[in-house]
Structures are given as C-alpha cells and as structure tokens.
C-alpha cells in the first residue's frame, strides 16, 4: 500500500493543478435539442454553461465535413457564451454541397435568430464559417433586428463557385447586411488576395467591416482532418480570437 502513495500523490497533484490559476473547465458534451418554428423543426446542438450567459452565439457551419460538435464552441461555452449550432442542411433537406447554402430560406433563419434572442435574453452574435456565412447573411438580409454582430471565418460568399479569369458574383444578401462584421482570415489562403473585394461588398449594406489575419494556419484549421502541429496550437486559442471579435463589436454597438 505504501508503494502506492507516490501514485496517489501524483493523481492529487494533477487534479489540483487543473483547477489552478482560475482555469475554466471545457464542457465536454453538447446537448441535442430542437425547436418548432412555423411548423418546421430546427434541430441544433447547444453548448451551455451553468453561469449566466454573456451573449448567445449561433454557429453556422460550412458545407464540408459532417454535422459534429465543434471544439471551439465548447471553448466559447466554457467562457460564458451559450452557443447554438443548428443543422440547416437537415432543416432545408439540402445536400452538404457548395451551392446549398444560397438556397437556405433567410426568413426561417431570421425567425430562429429571434427565438435564440428571446430565449437567451442576451445579444446574439452569428459566427459564419466558410460557406456558413451565406446562410447567416441570408438570415440577416431577411431581418437583422435581433443580430448584434457577425464573425465570419474565412468567408466564402459567392453565388457560384468562382472560376479563374471569370468575374465573380456575390450572393445578393452580402450587400444587404447592416450589422457590424469582423472577418477572421487565416493567412495561408488565396482568400487573402481578395479580402478587399469581400469587405467592400459587405460594406454595401451599411455594415462596418474589419478583418484580422490569423498567421500560420489554413482555412478551416479548427476542424481540418489534416491539421498541422502549428494549427493544433492555434486551434486551442481560436475561441479567444472569436471573443476578441465579439468584444470589438460590443464596443462598436455601445458607441
């Protein structure tokens, strides 16, 4: 039994160290839930926290990958945000394809945003990842009144997949956004060459748009299956980038 003492001491130390420096524990599980809006069932994942929420975030996932839990959403929940991740592909019976996002009905998305706003009784921020930005913009174009701001992660807001040497067309909703936008753009991406074009398009609807480059990572690094060691490190801090973006929009809204 005596030989086991160092082992127990080690376990105790590990347990104590994980609580030190006021670190918040990341919640490990999201809750599957759904809401009926206008006879349409909207399934979503909810990442909550026992403490009162700072703000609500609606996570608009990209068209690639599966509908799975997002580590960054857990991190945001651990920092006091309530995060909702609706499965829009299931809602609209659309395949997970590039073109699907533009077909998503903005009116229903807007009504879901209102429902979240009412439920959370807090400001609502949208996070649009890649093509997820299209669904978020469709919702805002239908009704922006419940949205405090939007964070776009390497947004792709074209109407069709762009072809080289051909002019691009943006989704109509891109020019009808009046809420503040912060773009978080990984620098290992061809999108960095087109940032100005995207920013100016989004400004057409009255949105204030600012962009931040995230160094040394690729588009969608927070959910890539081929993640690099550098991206693993950046991913663990990604929620801080999103929080900083939300914080800057909060300040903007207060002014």
């Amino acid at each position, binding site marked *: 039994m005596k030989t086991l003492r160092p082992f127990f001491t080690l376990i105790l130390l590990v347990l104590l160290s994980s609580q030190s420096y006021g670190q918040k524990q990341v919640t490990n599980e999201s809750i599957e839930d759904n809401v009926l809006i206008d006879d349409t069932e909207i399934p979503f994942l909810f990442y909550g926290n026992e403490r009162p929420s700072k703000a609500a975030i609606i996570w608009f996932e990209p068209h690639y990958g599966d509908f799975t839990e997002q580590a960054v959403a857990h991190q945001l929940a651990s920092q006091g945000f309530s995060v909702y991740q609706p499965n829009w592909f299931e809602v609209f019976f659309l395949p997970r394809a590039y073109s699907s996002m533009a077909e998503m009905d903005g009116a229903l998305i807007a009504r879901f945003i209102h429902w979240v706003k009412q439920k959370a009784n807090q400001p609502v921020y949208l996070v649009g990842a890649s093509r997820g930005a299209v669904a978020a913009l469709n919702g805002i174009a239908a009704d922006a009144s419940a949205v405090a701001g939007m964070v776009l992660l390497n947004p792709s807001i074209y109407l069709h997949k762009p*072809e080289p040497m051909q002019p*691009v067309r943006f989704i109509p909703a891109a020019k009808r956004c009046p809420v503040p936008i912060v773009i978080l753009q990984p620098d290992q991406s*061809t999108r960095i*060459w*087109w940032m100005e074009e995207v920013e100016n398009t989004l400004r057409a609807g009255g949105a204030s748009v600012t962009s931040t480059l995230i160094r040394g990572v690729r588009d969608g690094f927070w959910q890539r299956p081929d993640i690099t060691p550098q991206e693993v490190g950046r991913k663990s801090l990604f929620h801080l980038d999103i929080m900083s973006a939300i914080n800057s929009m909060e300040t903007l809204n207060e002014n």
Partner: protein
Amino acid sequence: MKTKLRTLCLLCIALLASTGAYANSSLYNLSFPNVDEQEIQLSEYKGKVILLNFWATWCPPCVKEMPSMQRLHDKFPEKDFEIVAISAGESQAAVESFMMGLDTELTFPILLDETGRTFKDFGIRGLPMSFLFDREGNLIKTISGSREWDEEREVQLIESAIQR
C-alpha cells in the same frame, strides 16, 4: 451614326482584348525570381507549350501533384514543353526549405510571387490552379484543382497542345 459604330467597334475590340488577358505578350512580360533569387522572364520559354502552375507549400493537393508534374515534365523534349510552377505568396526561405524536404527532385523552374501580384490578374481564388499556354503564349486551358499529371488524359492534353 458612323461615330457610334466606330465607338461600338472599339469597345468590342477592347472587350475582346481584355478577355484574352495573358495572351501572347502579356504572358511573356511576366518575370519572377526563382529560389536562387535570379529573375526569370517567361519570355525565355517563347516557342514552347507552357504549363503555368500556381501552388503553395501549405496546400496539400498542390504538394501531392508535384511528383506527377515532374514525371509529365520528363515525358516531353525540353524544346517543346516547360512547366513553370509559381509559389503563391510565400517567402524564398519557406519554398527553398520545402523543396529540400521533397522526395522528388523538381527540375522544372519554381518561381516566387511573394506578393501575390499575379493572383488578381489570373483570377485565382483557389489552389492548385494551372494554365496551359500554346507555343505562341495563348491561353488554351485553365485547370482548377490537382491532377495526376502523368495520366493518359493529361499527357494527351500536352501532346495535342504541342502538335497544334
């Protein structure tokens, strides 16, 4: 009426010319440094079919297609065909260190567009992206995404461009 027609004709000519950006002289006016920091003019490859490939070390499909690109390069005489791979927005050091770590030795020119100045001209919004030019420097095909470049379909594409 004559003036209106002339304006219309001029407009059409201007439009046609603009859609053929990087036809003939435009392609040959381009120059980029290579990894040894020597400036390379694309006019050096005048008279050859050119496969202009845009890539980046951080782009997995770009890296994957490199060995097959080398095999394609080896299939054709130097006088007929050249591959020019332009690294997108990366430093000389990053590209050089990447090349040193490759299993395949690349014998075609690797050039650097550190500022990404050609991206807007070519309308590149994704990588890898390749452009095939004929012996006169006219664009004959754009190829989005990666390929196994030594497969029959791609080899035939180059053969037909050489024989044009």
